[in-house]
């Protein structure tokens, strides 16, 4: 029989000694620092080469880093595959366009915009954060409904979000220009703002991953039942990640708008969804390092194939690969990696130089 008089509470369980402040951050910060250095190396390479097309190619890569890191924040931590995130990129890109295009042009091309937006002409560094927050607010609103779903139902619902946003932006003539291109977005050719966006995305993703919410969400990804039994409010933690990733996707959208100067709804639809998801899957869906490396590796491959498709002159002859090989090679590579390494090249680990301790 158990004694009904309860003995004093065990001393070792009362007020245990807490670790030093920021101990966890200090232990894990090497990952975002390493990834940021990698990004800086890419930028330096572009500047040293001095070639304009190469510079543009590097800018495209940095924009994709921002987008794929944004995807990772939600997909990687929650394990819920989302096909809808490029919708938030669309929101961010158009918001950046609305805020930065010359008001005279907007009055004729986008007359349906509210007056305060019509008259606004912000520099890109002010417009981009606003665009990101706009995308985040919409993600928060949609997420409140979506995050109650799980598994395949949630994935299909995110796809519906993508289709919805695309349909609205393809038809709301006076505000989005419908399917015709919105032109006149100030083009930014300097690579550093894109470096900044990618590094900000990486640090946001890291901060979320080591937060309480990030830990709880990864637990829910592995064992939802046990996570709920551990006090984790799964829809809430998913919503947090969904909103943060919406913000980063919006930031990526603004960056994309300024890198090409023109937006149409179809820039932000299935093509971009497929390519960004492939990069995440190839690198390693549940790893921040995997997200970044996936972009760099696949982008290098795509660039290489483009170069070969255009033709290489060797002496007197030109060797060229057939057009379209790029897409086929990309698809083939994805199938091979999914077959051989379903968790991606990096798996669920992070690049650290310290003792490996799971994920954050």
């Amino acid at each position, binding site marked *: 029989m158990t004694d009904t008089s309860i003995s004093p509470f065990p001393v070792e*369980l009362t007020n*245990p000694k807490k670790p030093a402040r920021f101990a966890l951050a200090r232990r894990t910060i090497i990952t975002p620092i390493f990834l940021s250095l990698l990004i800086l190396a890419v930028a330096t390479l572009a500047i040293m080469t001095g070639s304009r097309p190469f510079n543009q190619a590097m800018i495209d890569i940095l924009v994709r880093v921002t987008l794929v890191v944004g995807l990772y924040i939600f997909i990687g931590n929650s394990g819920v595959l989302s096909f809808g995130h490029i919708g938030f990129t669309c929101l961010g890109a158009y918001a950046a366009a609305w805020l930065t295009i010359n008001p005279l042009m907007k009055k004729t091309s986008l007359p349906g915009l509210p007056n305060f937006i019509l008259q606004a002409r912000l520099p890109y560094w002010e417009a981009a954060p606003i665009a990101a927050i706009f995308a985040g607010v919409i993600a928060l609103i949609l997420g409140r409904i979506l995050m109650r779903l799980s598994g395949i139902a949630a994935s299909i619902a995110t796809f519906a979000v993508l289709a919805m946003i695309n349909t609205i932006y393809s038809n709301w003539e006076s505000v989005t220009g419908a399917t015709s291109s919105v032109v006149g977005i100030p083009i930014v050719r300097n690579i550093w703002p894109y470096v900044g966006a990618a590094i900000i995305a990486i640090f946001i993703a890291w901060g979320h991953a080591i937060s309480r919410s990030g830990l709880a969400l990864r637990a829910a990804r592995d064992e939802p039942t*046990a*996570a709920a*039994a551990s*006090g984790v409010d799964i829809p809430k933690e998913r919503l947090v990640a969904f909103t943060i990733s919406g913000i980063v996707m919006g930031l990526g959208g603004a960056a994309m708008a300024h890198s090409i100067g023109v937006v149409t709804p179809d820039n932000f639809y299935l093509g971009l969804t497929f390519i960004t998801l492939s990069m995440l899957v190839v690198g390693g869906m549940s790893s921040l390092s995997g997200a970044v490396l996936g972009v760099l590796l696949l982008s290098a491959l795509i660039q290489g194939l483009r170069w070969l498709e255009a033709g290489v002159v060797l002496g007197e002859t030109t060797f060229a690969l057939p057009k379209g090989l790029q897409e086929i090679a990309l698809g083939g590579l994805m199938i091979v990696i999914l077959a051989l390494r379903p968790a991606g090249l990096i798996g669920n680990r992070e690049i650290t130089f310290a003792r490996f*301790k*799971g994920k954050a």
Partner: protein
Amino acid sequence: MGHLSAEYVSVAFAGLKALSSVTLRIQSGHISGLIGPNGAGKTTLVNVLTGFQIPTEGTVILNGQPLGRLKPHEVRRRGIARTFQSGRLFRDLPVIDNLEVTGVGLGMSRRTAVAEAEAMLDWIGISALSSRIAGTLPYTDERRVAIGRALMGRPAYILLDEPAAGMSAAEATELSNLVRRIARDLGCGVLIIEHNVGLVLGLCDHIVVLDSGAVIEEGVPADIRKSEKVRHAYMGTAAETSLPAEEVML
């Protein structure tokens, strides 16, 4: 002294009654046992007590107040913890993070949660496992980590679903000692579901026997051991499980 009880709880799945009007009471600092043949409804009852299963009829009462239709995480935040038959650790996370998840789930900062988690591992005696990835642990360690995870934040009640399944006699003895400490030192009300009837008879203050979704017997271990109904329920449906003739000393 607090109570957690299921009162006249019935659960029907597509017309099939999994539980019919079951009443069970768990008391702070006491160990209650829930036994019965496979399919008797034991896990269903734990699911009802922890918000994973909404009862068709009846209520769960915590310290005199009906729990209502709380979600599992809300039930946990009221101090009712549980473990699962299959362990269900967060396999990709280190052991320490497995415990930390409950800490942050209950609203602690990560700093507080990691400190509490370390203290808990130490109290259970598995500090050495702290940085092991949970998915690589042997079975018995997995069980102890799952208990540690459930004990984070000092729940008032803990429901253990077959914690000794697959354990050797020595490991089961060690587990019994841990369960006694949980009740005595932490003041927790414990409910233990076990197929190892010997372990339950030696450990519990009070035992409830379920068969086909209904309580067929309850009382102190001595009563249960003498019960013809219990013997019949076990012999009739699961020949390999029989009541030990004498108390297994633990």
